[in-house]
């Protein structure tokens, strides 16, 4: 009986399938496209198996080579990491099912390998307990993302991919410098061990390595001055890849920042600074999204805005803020991934990415348009949907943030939500009430494209109907995140 509950399997299984794809490819390139769904399904099952354990123990630790931390590389899964791993596996499964029909360009075997690697890297990033492993996972994720962004090899995607590659590599180097500085200061790479030893450093001593790590991860996480690559890279990729990039990859980078700030550095003194960055990200993303004509570009800018939203909630530093951040992450990942998949399905029919060309397709592509509306409503936070509860929690957390500017912050948040609603309603208005262009042949996309995002839509609807258990769980996760001693003891206290 294989031990199904070892979190190392979350990395090992998809990695095994990558190499399996390389073995199968010479015989049948078509067959490789059935590997990603299988790998992500196995991952999803493993993560679901891990839920009771994490709920019971708090943090589960797996070691390599039989040596106990802090001397070996270890994997530490806590509530936040596990939930992100579940989201990553779910989105990977959905997007790879979508790929079966969607990706027709060659070389398919290479695409599937890169896609699997992307999923591996993201899962790896959210469950690792080691700073250098974080860097390696970050690089696995970003290199496969560079390849996937440039996959179509036309002018736009190559240019976007190159731009992303240059910025991403600089970010990775900065992250590595920060990690090495931490190593030089504390003599260890284990997150929990660093977290214990960091206590003897002052605010100023922590500032230099922290800023390197923050900048490095911030490039990938699309924080405000560093996100010039994202509005080009996310639209240029195939839609299924954009859904993964927007849905979970930027979130994974933000997770790494959260982990570094709260657990590793215990750096609450830096909060005002990251609050400002998050606010700028929010304002920049939402206002830029408002002026876009290209639907995928609009969704990409909306991702920047959402990132700012939950990063803002996190940087409030309270339990309620982190709860709101987690809920917003969950809501954003599911809805944005679904919106990108639907946009991809619509583009296959309309053959254009311009929003004006989408007018009137609500009458022809009924299922897609209705689910687009569901995703958009959930994202902007209309009452029955989960987005409402997450935004409400964030607003309450902001009101509880005792600061002179509290009211200003709330006003900015609400105003940005209104802008978000405005551009989504504009798209939906043209979709449902616009005039269909003469002489266009538009019909519903093929079932192979529709079924995956309908599954995701059902998940979103379920969350809308039963939000209470998830809200309770997210509160637990937030409490666990803020009590960093639990994490440290779980890793260093042996198994």
């Amino acid at each position, binding site marked *: 009986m294989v031990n199904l509950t070892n979190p190392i399997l979350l990395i090992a299984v998809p990695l095994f399938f990558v190499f399996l794809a390389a073995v199968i490819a010479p015989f049948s390139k078509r067959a490789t496209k059935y590997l990603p769904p299988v790998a992500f399904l196995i991952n999803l099952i493993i993560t679901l198996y891990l839920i009771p354990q994490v709920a019971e123990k708090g943090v589960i630790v797996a070691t390599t080579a039989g040596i106990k931390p802090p001397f070996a590389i270890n994997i530490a899964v806590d509530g936040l990491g596990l939930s992100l791993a579940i989201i990553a596996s779910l989105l990977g499964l959905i997007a790879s099912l979508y790929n079966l029909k969607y990706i027709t360009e060659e070389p398919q075997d290479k695409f599937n390998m890169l896609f699997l690697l992307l999923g591996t890297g993201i899962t790896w990033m959210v469950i690792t307990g080691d700073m250098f492993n974080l860097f390696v996972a970050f690089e696995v994720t970003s*290199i496969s993302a*560079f390849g996937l962004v440039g996959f179509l090899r036309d*002018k*736009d995607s*190559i240019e976007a991919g*190159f731009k992303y590659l*240059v910025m991403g*590599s*600089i970010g990775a180097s900065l992250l590595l410098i920060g990690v090495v500085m931490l190593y030089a200061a504390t003599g260890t790479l284990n997150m929990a061990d660093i977290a214990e030893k960091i206590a003897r450093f002052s605010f100023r001593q922590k500032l230099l390595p922290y800023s390197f790590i923050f900048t490095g991860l911030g490039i990938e996480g699309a924080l405000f001055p560093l996100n010039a690559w994202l509005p080009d890279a996310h639209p240029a990729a195939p839609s299924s890849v954009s859904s993964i990039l927007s849905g979970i990859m930027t979130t994974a980078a933000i997770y790494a920042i959260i982990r570094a700030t709260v657990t590793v550095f215990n750096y609450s003194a830096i909060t005002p600074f990251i609050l400002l960055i998050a606010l700028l990200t929010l304002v920049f993303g939402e206002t830029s999204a408002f002026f876009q004509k290209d639907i995928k570009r609009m969704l990409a800018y909306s991702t920047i805005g959402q990132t700012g939203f939950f990063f803002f909630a996190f940087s409030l530093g309270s339990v309620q803020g982190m709860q709101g951040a987690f809920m917003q992450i969950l809501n954003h990942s599911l809805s944005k991934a679904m919106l990108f998949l639907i946009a991809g399905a619509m583009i296959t029919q309309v053959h254009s990415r311009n929003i004006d060309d989408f007018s009137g397709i609500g009458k022809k592509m009924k299922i897609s348009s209705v689910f687009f509306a569901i995703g958009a409503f959930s994202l902007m936070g209309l009452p029955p949907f989960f987005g409402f509860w997450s935004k409400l929690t964030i607003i309450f957390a902001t009101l509880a943030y005792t600061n002179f500017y509290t009211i200003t912050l709330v006003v900015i948040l609400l105003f940005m939500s209104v802008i978000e609603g405005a551009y989504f309603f504009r798209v939906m208005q043209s979709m449902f009430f616009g005039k269909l262009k003469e002489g266009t042949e538009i019909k519903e996309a093929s079932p192979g494209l529709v079924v995956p995002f309908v599954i995701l839509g059902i998940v979103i609807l379920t969350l809308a109907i039963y939000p209470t258990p998830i809200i309770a769980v997210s509160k637990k996760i937030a409490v666990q995140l803020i009590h960093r001693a639990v994490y440290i003891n779980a890793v260093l206290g042996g198994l």
Partner: protein
Amino acid sequence: MIFYVGAFILIAVGLYAIIIKKNLVKIIIGLDLISSGTNLLIVSIGYVKGGTAPIFSHPGILPQMMVDPVPQALTLTAIVIGASELALAAAFVAILYKHYGTLDIRKVRGLKW
């Protein structure tokens, strides 16, 4: 100390090349300089002058004369990653050249930079 200075000069030159230079190949060279500088920084953290490998091969070796092996392992990993990144960058530049027939970044402007 000289290693740290050298490492940061390499990183600064690399950043300069990426920001100022207009030739795509020079930008790639800049990326390589940054990763080389980072690698030099990592190795020099574990370096001990006149040190030896961390193996107790004969009795006279003291632990404080040993070079820290962890940064060297990190460097090896970082070199491999950097190499694959550069290979990908070179592939991108080759395709860009096919599309535009030039390596000048001012002429490669399909998107807003």
